[in-house]
């Protein structure tokens, strides 16, 4: 039989959300968490990352391309769905809808975030230091945008973990699905608190 491109594309989309995009989200949070120890610790961590010759390659192949695939193929997947959460008001149906809403919010946020802080930097040559983020975070408008973008991203990640386990046939029965739901909620809460603390530390 022919190669099942459609199936592979969908499953790669599911996988890419966790590896590498989801893992990168966690690494990103971890590196930013150095700010909790003060501006110097943060600047050192960023400097260490940027001092490797492999970093730009990782940024393109392990982060950029997978995010682009996950994001734009995901937009298509969202487009072909027909939501009905008002008619069928079930918990998972709402999660289904929120997963797609947060997907669009996250994609717009990430495009803006990457353009302003990474791509524009190539042209201007500014070094990424605590001071620059401090300026951003001190502006209440940008701070709110960051909070929304961040919460959308981790909601999408946590609920995506739930969906990943189902799509790959890991959680099958109702009991395992329920327990995994609780764990995913916990992941969302823990990452949410951590992220908001980190964002506030930049203020």
């Amino acid at each position, binding site marked *: *039989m022919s190669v*099942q491109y*459609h*199936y*592979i594309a*969908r*499953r790669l989309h599911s996988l890419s959300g966790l590896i590498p995009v989801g893992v990168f989200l966690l690494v990103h949070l971890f590196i930013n968490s150095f700010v909790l120890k003060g501006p110097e610790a943060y600047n050192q961590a960023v400097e260490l990352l940027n001092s490797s010759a492999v970093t730009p390659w990782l940024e393109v192949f392990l982060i950029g391309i997978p995010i682009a695939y996950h994001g734009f193929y995901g937009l298509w*997947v969202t*487009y*072909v*769905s*027909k*939501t*009905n959460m008002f*008619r*069928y008001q*079930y918990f*998972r*149906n709402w*999660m*289904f809808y929120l997963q797609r809403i947060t997907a669009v919010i996250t994609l717009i946020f990430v495009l803006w975030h990457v353009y302003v802080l990474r791509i524009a930097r190539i042209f201007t040559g500014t070094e990424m230091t605590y001071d620059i983020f401090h300026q951003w975070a001190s502006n209440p408008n940008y701070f709110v945008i960051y909070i929304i973008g961040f919460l959308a991203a981790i909601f999408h990640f946590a609920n995506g973990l739930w*969906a990943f386990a*189902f*799509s*790959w*046939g*890991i*959680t*099958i*029965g*109702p009991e395992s*699905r329920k327990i995994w739901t609780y764990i995913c909620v916990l992941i969302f809460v823990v990452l949410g608190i951590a992220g908001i603390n980190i964002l506030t530390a930049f203020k």
Partner: protein
Amino acid sequence: MKEVLLKIKRQDNPQTKPYWEEFKVPLTPKMNVISCLLEIQKNPVNVKGQQTTPIVWDCNCLEEVCGACTMIINGIARQACAALVENLTQPIVLQPLTKFPLVRDLMVDRIKMFENLKKIRAWVPIDGTYYLGPGPKVSQSVQEKVYPISTCMTCGCCMEACPYVNNKSNYMGPTAMAQVYLFNSHPTGAMEKEKRLDAITGDGGIADCGKALNCERVCPKEIPLVSIIGELNRQTTFRSFSRWLFK
């Protein structure tokens, strides 16, 4: 005399525009939606007193076994025969299913589901040129597990509630997935297990499931569709990897 108020979405043919028409019928004990429609058929006059055409709908068994009278009743897809007037808020709003081509009024063409059953080979292959003897026994535990699936009447409730069954997507829907599971569980049917799994890793296959999980909630036969899709997800994962790694 007590009356039942019905608000029905009508459409004369697939090319014309739909319109709403209201009817009042006398309430009789134990009345269901079908008997309301029969009352309208006897006297096709709407609430404005205008003579109109009787409502067209599909029905057959009248005991929630055939699935033919599935329609959207007060917003939810279900069987009209099993929808008792005493349990419904009035006006009772009737609409045709939206995921299938409309024929007229409340009647839709559900052949799509039959075509899907052909795609996934929803049968036990026993055709031969000679007597094949009795088939293998099916264990009690397997029988108990798959019996609910065999009660599927392809009514289309799960298709109606599924966000990925629509004009833009080719998804075959939960009903076809359940039948893959049913026929793969049968010892003789299992001889074509790989063919069925390959059919649902193709276009419109299992990967299109968006995990809204409405299907199980609306299924009138309470078939555990989510667990079935979950288990097929595992089987297609292994199947697709082994297809590739053993190449």
